[in-house]
């Protein structure tokens, strides 16, 4: 049984019990262990079962905030299906990938969710970084090489460490070109003019690598499209 179906069953059961409680004239499910309400995260893969609240009952504000915080916390595990239960005593039980973890503290570790597509493993992080670095390094090489142009000039001669390229200001109206330009338009302008080289197609792997290097060198700089 998947976590989701468990959640649904729990929700249905809670609804039935809540209906019974309603017949008995009870105004609130508070304190009733058989009453519960299920709240889903936007990905429909994370569910929080709140015990002591009927399925047709509004969550008290403090409880609602707690549920929202817990769902946000669980969203760290991108594609995992996770069901958490907030018991009457406020303890949290998490069920994921067929395993149950009691007394979960939001923000704490959930090792089972790291197996795949969840919180990345160190190995996964290494692979992602290596792949990114490979593209950036190729851009770095091209940026410092005379092979893009024909006259010996390289991008880095005027732009050491990709300085003065301000990629974060694109798109912008490039006054000299008299039209709105993207970073790649300026890269091509530089290739055509100071480097006297052949223009690159926009999907040319060399263009992608150059853009990757320039953008990666400006990590942390705020985007300011249109700034002059």
């Amino acid at each position, binding site marked *: 049984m998947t976590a989701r179906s468990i959640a649904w069953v729990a929700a249905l059961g809670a609804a039935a019990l809540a209906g019974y409680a309603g017949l008995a004239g009870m105004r609130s499910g508070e304190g009733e262990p058989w009453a519960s309400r299920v709240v889903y995260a936007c990905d429909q893969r994370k569910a929080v079962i709140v015990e002591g609240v009927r399925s047709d009952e509004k969550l008290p504000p403090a409880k609602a905030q707690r549920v929202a915080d817990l769902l946000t916390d669980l969203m760290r595990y991108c594609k995992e299906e996770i069901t958490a239960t907030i018991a009457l005593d406020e303890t949290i039980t998490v069920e994921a990938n067929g395993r149950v973890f009691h007394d979960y503290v939001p923000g704490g570790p959930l090792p089972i969710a790291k197996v795949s597509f969840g919180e990345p493993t160190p190995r996964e992080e290494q692979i992602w970084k290596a792949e990114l670095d490979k593209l950036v390094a190729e851009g770095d090489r091209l940026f410092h090489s005379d092979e893009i142009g024909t006259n010996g000039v390289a991008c880095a001669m005027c732009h050491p460490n990709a300085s*003065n390229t301000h990629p974060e200001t694109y798109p912008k109206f490039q006054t000299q070109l008299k039209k709105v330009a993207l970073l790649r338009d300026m890269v091509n302008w530089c290739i055509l*003019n100071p480097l006297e080289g052949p223009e690159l197609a926009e999907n040319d792997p060399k263009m992608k690598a150059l853009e990757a290097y320039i953008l990666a060198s400006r990590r942390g700089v705020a985007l300011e499209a249109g700034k002059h």
Partner: protein
Amino acid sequence: MAINLTPKELERELRERSPDAERMIRSLQNCDRRHFLKVTARFAAMVAAAGVIQPQSFQLVNVANAAPAPGENPEVLFRFAYISDSHLFARGMTHRFAKGLIKAVDDVNAIDPQPDFILYGGDLAQLGRADELMLGQQILSGLKAPVKMMVGEHDWFLDMGAKWREMFGPDVYSFDHKGVHFVVLNSVQEEDFWTAKGYTPEQRMNIVAGLDDARQSRFEVGEEQRDWLAKDLAKVDKKTPVIVFSHSPLYKYYEPWNFWTKDAEQVQALLFPFETVTVIHGHTHQLLTNRIKNISFHGMLSTAWPWPYAPQGLPEYTVQMFRSDPFNQFDGLGDGTVDVLEGGAANKHYALWNRNPRTVSYADLAKNTLVGPRGHAGPSY
């Protein structure tokens, strides 16, 4: 009235206000540098007469705004010119960098009267090759005034200066001219980073040629040369003005780009005992001014390409130049002159090819009254 008129708006404004405007505007369009100041002054006077506020693009550039007090406007003893950082490839006279140096030679030859001599500030070649240096020598041979050569790292690291010295003589020397002691240093020495790694001379040159290539060491004058300098200066009276030429700035500006001399403090210490010292350096390809105690530092313009200001460490004395326009090959480039004044101080003149000229006067540097677009949030980085 808006302060920032575009040239077009200004033209319209003037045409309406002054009958002479049209003729003046036409003369400005084809004016060479020799006539530029004269024309600009007349233009500015007319603008003022017409009641139009001067727009930035036609402003008379007076880097310093303080009026000189009596005794602060000494006579010019003599003038020398400079050309620097041409970075030539051996790809003929039509390559863009060759065009830059040719333009500089024409420009300096047009100075009237001619300067006493011309300093070539280093980085004549791009990759230290004999054919690059020979192309440079050929273009520089067109200069009318005598040339004093200085070496840069791009001239040096292919063969450790062998060809350069064979062609131009010693890389470290001093001379006296009209009562001023001149010293030419080779400040681009680097601690050996190539032997252990087994780099070929070409690889070594390429690494040093990459401004942001962290595999190289930092520039230094080195102990041997500092000893030579100490001995050379020992013969010089402390009241004699000293002017030092170095390729790298003899202070610490930005380490990752070698806008830097590792033993700058030790070299400065040798210069502190003198009354008036001026350092003229290349390498940084930008308007750059600094002052440390008695030493004034001035950068030279490149004839090949301008460099952005570094993200950190810019001396506060520097009045920044707004970032150059890549669409104009010569913007941010140029040559210039240095007026050596009575008493040995120097006024530094930047002859920018695509912008108004700028002068950084000693009087204002000493008082730190330079004004400019300081506080502009990094015009180029």
